[in-house]
């Protein structure tokens, strides 16, 4: 299972990189979203996918899955959400002001070049 999940994360990250290399700002942000999904899945996979109960003591199970990666991913999800939200609004404003979402056109003014 871990090998399969590694491949899935790799696939997600590869697609993310492909999107990030495109010109459209919206696609770049979609790419970052995919990238964080890939990273989160990778953290979970690296913690081990051994079968065990959910990390709740009330279950009285003989073994539990590792709670630490879950806590880390929870933090990472919230942070990546904050960043993505800011990013999106930034892109939205940039589009409003500059009238383009093509990153190739978003360069310094000629005078600054």
């Amino acid at each position: 299972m871990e090998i399969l999940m590694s491949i899935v994360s790799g696939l997600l990250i590869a697609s993310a990189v492909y999107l990030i290399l495109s010109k459209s700002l919206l696609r770049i942000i979609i790419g970052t979203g995919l990238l964080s999904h890939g990273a989160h899945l990778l953290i979970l996979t690296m913690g081990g996918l051994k079968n065990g109960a959910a990390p709740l003591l009330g279950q009285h199970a003989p073994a539990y899955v590792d709670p630490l990666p879950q806590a880390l991913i929870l933090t990472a999800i919230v942070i990546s959400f904050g960043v993505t939200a800011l990013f999106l609004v930034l892109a939205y404003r940039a589009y409003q002001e500059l009238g383009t979402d093509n990153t190739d056109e978003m360069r310094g003014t000629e005078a600054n070049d």
Partner: protein
Amino acid sequence: MSLLHIAIFSPFLMAILVPLFYKGLRRIHTGWFVLILPIVLFTYFLQLLPVTRDNQAIQKSFDWIPSLGISFTAYVDGLGLLFALLITGIGALVVLYSIFYLSKEKEKLHNFYVYLLMFMGAMLGVVLSDNLITLYMFWELTSISSFLLIAYWYDRDRSRYGALKSMLITVFGGLAMLGGFLLLSIMGDTFSIRELIAQASELNDHPLFLLALLLVLIGAFTKSAQFPFYIWLPDAMEAPTPVSAYLHSATMVKAGIYLVARMSPIFAFSEYWFWLVGGVGIFTLFWGSFNAVKQTDLKGILAFSTVSQLGLIMSLLGVGAAALQFDGIDDNIYTAATIAAVFHLINHATFKGSLFMVVGIVDHETGTRDIRKLGGLLSLMPITFTVAVIGAFSMAGLPPFNGFLSKEMFFTGMIQLLELDLFNLQTWGLLFPVLAWVGSVFTFIYSMMIVFKTFTGKYQPEKLEKTPHEAPIGMLIPPIILAALVVVFGIFPNILSYNLIQPAVAAIIPSLVEPGEKIPVHISHWHGFNSELKMTIGVVVLGAVMYITLNKWIKVYNIFPNKVTINALYDTSLYAAERGSYTLTKSVMTGYIRTYLVYIFVFFIGMLGFTMWTEDAFTMDTSNLAPIGIYEVALVLLIVLATFTILVAKSRLTSIVALGAVGYTVSLFFVIFRAPDLALTQLVIETVSVALFLLCFYHLPKLSRHEERMRFKLGNLLISAGVGIVVTLIAISAHSTKMFESISKYYIENTYDKAGGENMVNVILVDFRGFDTLFEVCVLGIAALGIYGLIKLRLEKKGGVIDENK
């Protein structure tokens, strides 16, 4: 802090006071206040003469950075004292001369004297330091103050060009020298020159020895304007003439000579030292004198002549190093070259200083230094003419002036070289006397040019800017004193030999001096009708013939076009360096964000892939894998499908929805992998995110909303596939090499007992590792405020006031 230290630092203290004198006492020329200091210092150093005469030394030390072994150790021996006397003595004369040369009304005198005093202090520090780091510090101070002095008339283009050139070249050399010093200190484990000399024979076998030797020599050659680093000196002639007289004839350019002399006891056992110092010196002598003849500017002639004479001294020091190859001084023939070097060092300071001052007077009184415009000044400026004759004849090596004696000794040294049986001298050794002799012929020619083209011939008043007349007496006194010294040293050379030359030679080749013994130095006028004298006669005869027929063969210089000079090489390489770095930056920094991302990703792939490959790091362990169930397979298929949809979707709306599908699948993964909190959060957040994406998409202005499929690019595909493969391989490899057990056992056991909760993830988030959560809250807060700011603050729409940020 001894009296000696106060003496070395006093010019710096004086430099602080100079602006006060300048502002406070406008009516008196600031130079008069400055003049006191070098005179006092000169007297102070004079009374140290009896100490060094007996080959004793004074050493005074105070700690600067004791933890690094850096102290300011002042060390006065024969060599240091000789230079200190030159610096303060000629310094006093130059200050006196500058009082009459620089106008009180028109010039910024405070700048001039502050720089000059800084230079004087730095120079004293160079010659009297025993610690390598202190020596280097003062060395760079001389570079900086000389830079400031050359560009004294900073509104002139040529001055700034010359200052920059000399700065670049001497600082290049200075840094190389610092490298050499550091290597030396690593080899000998000390910064003290004295202690390094004591272990010279062990250093000789060290693997770093040759590198240190080369680096130190680069420092010395750049400062002393040796081939091919001499090019800064002719351009430094844009400085005021007192500066040229002081820095570029008598003191700063001799710092390299000093360094070579000072380092001789450490390096001189090496064959490389002999060949480099001697060979470069003798070639510089020839090249400098050869080029001096074609100059038309008097200061240009003097600049090349300085280069040439420095080469002469340098070659003598190199040849003198051969003396160390023999044990004992049973035959003092081998020390003759070193004696000649020290003697000529003194002579050159006297006659070149006076010649510069003469040229300054001519420039000051006629308004030009061009020998094509000058002529016939003999009757108008008789005193200046006399001084010029004495200086130039001494430079040409004519009796009875001191230049004659040192020139004879120079020839002696070069001829004796042929008798030495070492360093393959049998084959190449003949070049030394030949080049020396040819160089002397050219020296004779340009010396005559200085005198006769300026003072005899046709008087051309229409070409001169001013009506020439004799200079004021104050301007004449310093060159007269120097010319008098030229004559006195010429007639009674032995007043120098025991007081100055003998201790200096003892400092350069200390291993040849037995304790309590003195090297016999005797300079005699008449040493028989030997080959040296024949060579001098040959120089005079051939030189005179060539001077008379100068117009016939001067075209020889046109054989070398201007493009192949070292100056052109310097200019071209400077231009190429600027142009090249500009082109490089321009081609690498394209301004497209995609380019930089490509760099980053390619580097990522290369770095990690290369490491994995070379370290043979890939391992695959299938023993502790979790089993794959039907649900997982379905989810994997789902997520792959959704991702693929994003990539090929034409409409952006489809991509956004597909991204949502990926997010929900991820939360389903979280469900399967027993992570309820993650699943909850992921569901909510994915929903909000997709809503945000849709909001953004919906509100985009309809400027260019034509939908198009992402254009396929093979490069992008390769890069992204590479990143994905590298990540996958590392993940598999990392999972297969478990180093140790997880620490989560502790959390599982203590969540209830210690923290009083049952949900482990939540207890970790707010109790065990609550700090993370605190700052994650901060991140969210900042993001919220940022979004609010982005939407609400529209500065430039409030009118044109804040437009400058746009």
